């Protein structure tokens, strides 16, 4: 008998803002839990969310190292697109999240990997920020380009740019 074809979902994770980073992982893990095949293409600020927490300064030359100092990446200390107020907003939001039992982002990424979600880092962003494969969390796919993201999207029923 033919295996039933699962619905496909692709998400372009572009933003490093807390209020976009959460919807990415919430929608992705929920779609995977509903039996759908999920691909996340992580690009630009969204790619920096995949940096290992303990990685410290990364980069391949002085400019990318400087960038890394200014924007260390990783799933912590993300700003809000609104009500950021110099970090007050995210600080309060984090308190509320803890109170409401909402797991931290890094845990969501682990769940995403465990659920078999295909996470594809953008090669071009990796080059721009001087990031190496080893700077990113484990369990994600090999770096790819826009053509792969487009091909994945063309085969999917749901495509989101977040």
């Amino acid at each position, binding site marked *: 008998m033919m295996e039933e074809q699962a619905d496909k979902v692709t998400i372009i994770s572009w933003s490093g803002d807390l209020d976009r980073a959460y919807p990415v992982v919430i929608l992705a*893990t929920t779609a995977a*839990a509903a039996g759908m095949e999920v691909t996340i293409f992580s690009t630009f600020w969204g790619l920096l969310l995949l940096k290992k927490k303990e990685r410290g300064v990364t980069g391949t030359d002085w400019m990318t190292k400087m960038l890394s100092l200014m924007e260390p990446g990783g799933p912590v200390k993300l700003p809000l697109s609104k009500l950021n107020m110099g970090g007050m907003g995210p600080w309060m939001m984090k308190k509320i999240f803890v109170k409401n*039992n909402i797991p931290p982002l890094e845990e969501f990424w682990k769940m995403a990997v465990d659920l078999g979600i295909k996470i594809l880092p953008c090669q071009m962003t990796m080059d721009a920020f001087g990031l190496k494969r080893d700077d990113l969390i484990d369990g994600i796919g090999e770096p790819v380009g826009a053509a792969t993201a487009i091909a994945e999207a063309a085969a999917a029923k749901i495509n989101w740019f977040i």
Partner: protein
Amino acid sequence: MSEKPTLVVDAKGLVCPMPILKAKKAIDSVQIGQVMELVATDPGSMADFKAWTRSTGHELLEARDEGGVYTYVIRRKK
């Protein structure tokens, strides 16, 4: 009338999407044809469990609301 669940999952105090993620893990751990029960307190879960069983094809045998405590009884179908 109601069937004894093979597995009972406590998702009380958890908010979206955690009850669904717990349900997915739980349903994968029972055999096809067996029944899983999940208890939640998230008010949004009533709509979400109906939608989730619709997308996954598992059978929602019961969805009870007992004063803000929601119980879902689900049979694994595949």
